[in-house]
């Protein structure tokens, strides 16, 4: 059979665990990793007669996130019961939002740092607030046919962010997840720890295949269980190939098969079939009689909007336009999180050189953070102390390799840059002495002078080497500049 070209169509449903101390409808703690079934109460166990009460903080964290995603906030919102049986859902229904979600119609812009795709605005259908289920663990031991259920997580607040099927490649889906995670950390609404499940992603994927008889669409598959950015990318890539092969084999198109759910198996790097998705009507949503609706005022929405600080996309633009950083440097700094941005802003202000500060943060500072696996909060050189070093670099008192030596020494001491320079015996070479040295070198090396004169400026490098032998403290950049000037004036 011949090969046809296709486009991958992807929509993502992202579940974000909100950073609250307590659950959505009861005041049990939401801490991760505690012994099983030690964080439950009659409400989250689904005991008859218990009454849920909405967590105020969960609602307002959701609103903050929705506003940052450019969503509209309806004045009136309510909660509904989504009915299905699953052992980690003790009530027999999940309290979620059906027809009147707390936010709708927003977007998130994504772009590739590696030019993998054109910049894209991914539209968001809605973000709604619902409760998490518990955890089931299959007991492999002793051949027992049971699953074990831990309900500590049951009722943890989740914000479900549903995108339109606007993404067209696995790389775009990964970029969307990364940008969303960055936004959520700037907003401080979630820990966003994918390993611990506080940020989870399901993808709805199908293909639009261009055949000889026009474009056909393959049946939609929902992929679950993608617990890292890499598995989002690989899961979607795998699924696209699988759907293409299945279509070639069976010819089945959208509408001829029910929506299927497949789980990503990270160790085998394949998706596997799970339960067939029940039709949405089978969830028999109806308004939860135990929870009263929420009504917000314009003023409340405005107050939450005011809480939102500067977000990644705006910061990137500011670092490029106001601070003159390259797209790359601005990206690197902003993508590391708000703390590093704040460090950079302080450093740039104190050093008085935006670009130099950008290069040092992106280069030396980040290298140390990565090598030592620490956060900027634990970085031993504060912005003020580093700024003193950068001022010396800027004034030409230190060349970049010496500056790195000083920087390395400052990492393990509390000394100022000036003190470290003294300790290391680095002295600034007097300008007159430097010029005299260059003069001598030029006179001593006629062949290099000829080379340079005939257009080979690189030849001057040999003079820098000689100058360093004469005096290790010379600044190579200055030697180069002075020597070239002397030669050109000959």
């Amino acid at each position, binding site marked *: 059979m011949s090969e046809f070209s296709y486009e991958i169509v992807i929509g993502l449903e992202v579940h974000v665990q909100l950073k609250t101390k307590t659950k959505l409808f009861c*005041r049990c703690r939401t801490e991760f990793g505690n012994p099983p079934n030690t964080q439950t109460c009659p409400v989250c166990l689904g005991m008859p007669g218990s009454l849920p009460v909405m967590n105020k903080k969960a609602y307002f964290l959701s609103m903050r996130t929705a506003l940052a995603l450019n969503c509209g906030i309806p004045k009136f919102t309510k909660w509904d019961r989504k009915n299905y049986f699953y052992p980690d859902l003790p009530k027999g229904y999940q309290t979620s939002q059906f027809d009147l979600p707390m936010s709708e119609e927003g977007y998130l812009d994504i772009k590739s740092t590696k030019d993998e795709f054109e910049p894209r605005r991914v539209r968001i259908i809605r973000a709604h607030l619902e409760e998490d289920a518990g955890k089931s663990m299959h007991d492999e031991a002793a051949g027992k046919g049971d699953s074990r259920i831990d309900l500590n997580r049951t009722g943890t607040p989740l914000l479900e962010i549903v995108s339109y099927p606007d993404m067209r490649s696995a790389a775009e889906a990964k970029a969307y997840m990364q940008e969303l995670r960055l936004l959520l950390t700037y907003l401080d609404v979630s820990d966003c720890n994918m390993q611990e499940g506080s940020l989870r992603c399901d993808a709805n994927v199908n293909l639009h295949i261009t055949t000889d008889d026009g474009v056909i669409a393959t049946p939609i598959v929902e992929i679950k269980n993608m617990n890292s950015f890499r598995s989002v990318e690989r899961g979607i890539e795998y699924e696209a190939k699988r759907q293409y092969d299945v279509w070639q084999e069976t010819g089945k198109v959208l509408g001829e098969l029910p929506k299927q759910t497949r789980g990503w198996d990270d160790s085998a790097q394949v998706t596997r079939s799970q339960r067939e998705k029940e039709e949405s009507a089978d969830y028999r949503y109806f308004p939860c009689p135990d929870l009263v609706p929420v009504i917000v005022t314009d003023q409340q929405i405005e107050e939450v909007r005011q809480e939102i600080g500067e977000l990644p996309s705006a910061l990137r633009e500011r670092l490029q336009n106001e601070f003159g950083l390259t797209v790359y440097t601005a990206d690197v700094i902003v993508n590391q999180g708000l703390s590093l941005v704040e460090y950079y802003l302080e450093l740039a202000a104190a050093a008085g050189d935006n670009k130099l500060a950008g290069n040092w943060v992106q280069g030396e500072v980040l290298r140390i953070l990565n090598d030592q696996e620490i956060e900027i909060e634990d970085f031993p050189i504060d912005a003020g102390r580093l700024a003193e070093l950068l001022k010396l670099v800027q004034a030409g008192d230190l060349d970049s390799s010496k500056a790195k030596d000083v920087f390395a020494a400052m990492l393990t001491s509390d000394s100022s840059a000036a003190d470290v320079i003294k300790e290391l015996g680095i002295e600034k070479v007097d300008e007159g002495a430097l010029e005299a040295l260059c003069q001598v070198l030029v006179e001593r090396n006629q062949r290099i002078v000829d080379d340079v004169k005939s257009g080979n400026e690189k030849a001057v490098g040999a003079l820098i080497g000689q100058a360093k032998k004469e005096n290790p403290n010379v600044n190579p950049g200055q030697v180069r500049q002075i020597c070239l000037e002397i030669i050109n004036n000959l």
Partner: protein
Amino acid sequence: MSLTRQDVEKVALLARLKFNEDGLDKMTDHMVQIIQYVDKLSELDTEDVQPMAHALDIYNALAEDEPRPSLSREDALKNAPKRDEECFRVPAVLGE
């Protein structure tokens, strides 16, 4: 609005209930009666009535995010038909 035997079979499946033939007939009869009873409501003219989301005229019942003690694990597991030291035990969850 009426209800067929197939509708009842489907609802029974969703509710994880099993009926024999006789039980299914009875259940269908009962449910048809209930539906017909509730159907009386559609005789009302609700043209200018706003749909309501809740029976009570109360909004914004919100609680502060302050932890309160949870049940002990012993108490939490007390009513479980099957359990071990730490967890509820249920028939194997297949799929994942």
